[in-house]
């Protein structure tokens, strides 16, 4: 036992001696260049870091992605004709209230909604925490987390409706419609994740989570293009 600890001490000392201590400055500089061109993920499903996905998970991801893209396309057409998406509270069509609104006014109104929403999002996040798809998480704790996640979806859905209900400048109509077309499929996928977690299918849930990324990118692109603050 003591001999083992002596070796550990020896290795520990050696590792400290071997450690470079300081990173080359170019690491931060190069990373900054890439980050400048990288958008943050939006939507709330990703509760853990990206995972390596097995063949089964990859197949699930591919299937879900196809469904999501098809769904987004269908909802896009539906939105264009009716102004609303399925499973969402009907809201005024932005086009009908957009007269005379400037980008600056829209940005201010949207940012105010998003800023006000962050504290509630943080509170929901704290209730969900980590370990949702960790098999070691006790069933009762997982059920509590899932309930909080369901609350978060409701919260996010309401938030999306508020944003979609804002008067927007005419120049933004097309891009806003693209963003809006991704909202319902994204929430549907998160609800699918909840169902998979409830069934103990954690790798499939992770795969669905990964498949949300393209939908998330649409929201990121919209925010980035018009210099809007990230919304929870």
């Amino acid at each position, binding site marked *: 036992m003591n001999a083992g600890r002596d070796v550990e001490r020896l290795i520990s000392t050696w590792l400290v001696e071997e450690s470079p201590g300081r990173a080359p400055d170019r690491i*931060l500089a190069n*990373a900054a260049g890439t980050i400048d061109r*990288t958008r943050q993920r939006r939507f709330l499903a990703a509760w853990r870091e990206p995972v390596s996905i097995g063949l089964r998970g990859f197949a699930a991801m591919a299937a879900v992605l196809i469904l999501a893209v098809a769904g987004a396309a269908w909802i896009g057409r539906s939105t264009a004709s009716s102004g609303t998406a399925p499973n969402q509270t009907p809201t005024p069509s932005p086009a009908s209230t957009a007269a005379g609104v400037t980008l600056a006014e829209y940005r201010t109104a949207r940012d105010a909604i998003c800023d006000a929403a962050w504290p509630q999002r943080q509170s929901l996040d704290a209730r969900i925490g980590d370990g949702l798809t960790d098999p070691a998480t006790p069933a009762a704790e997982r059920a509590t987390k899932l309930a909080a996640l369901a609350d978060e979806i409701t919260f996010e859905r309401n938030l999306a409706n508020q944003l979609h209900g804002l008067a927007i400048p005419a120049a933004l109509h097309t891009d806003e419609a693209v963003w809006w077309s991704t909202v319902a499929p994204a929430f549907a996928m998160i609800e699918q994740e909840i169902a998979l977690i409830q069934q103990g299918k954690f790798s499939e849930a992770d795969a669905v989570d990964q498949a949300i990324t393209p939908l998330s990118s649409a929201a990121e692109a919209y925010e980035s293009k018009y210099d809007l603050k990230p919304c929870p």
Partner: protein
Amino acid sequence: MTNVELVDRARRGDRQAFDALVAGMVDRLYSIARLILRDADRAEDATQETLVRCWRDLPSLREPSRFDAWIHRLLIRAVHDEFRAQRRHSANIRVLHAEPSQPDESGSVALREELQLGFARLTFEHRSVLVLRLYLGLSIDETAATIGIPAGTAKSRLHYATEAMRLALEANARPPVREVSA
């Protein structure tokens, strides 16, 4: 501003907060990567990749207070990717070379070289456990969570790796060291 506040701002897209956050930890991340990979260029790549993934996925971190553990997980994943790439691109059999050691007052050059050679023979999994536990000072549970393995497995890997290092230290004279890659 505390780290938790910086994390919270960064996950809302505040780039200045993100830059301040990672500036305070890039040295540690690079050191971990360098120790595990034993390759400066690949360690740079792994660290850079970790920072980019961190920015991209930060909104998914639900507990800002657990940022350190989260970014260590990202780093180990990036280091693993680099390690696998390293093995793919290297010859099946290669002669390992120890980095030249500087003589010190206790004359422990031989000891350091034995440690280097012993460490170089370890698998990625064993190196990771040693570095997280004995360099970073994480507990067994934290080490296990960072790598994503059960605590029992982490403990067993630590035991195996330490034992392998002990055997390397006991072997005073060696022929040229060769490693057979899978």
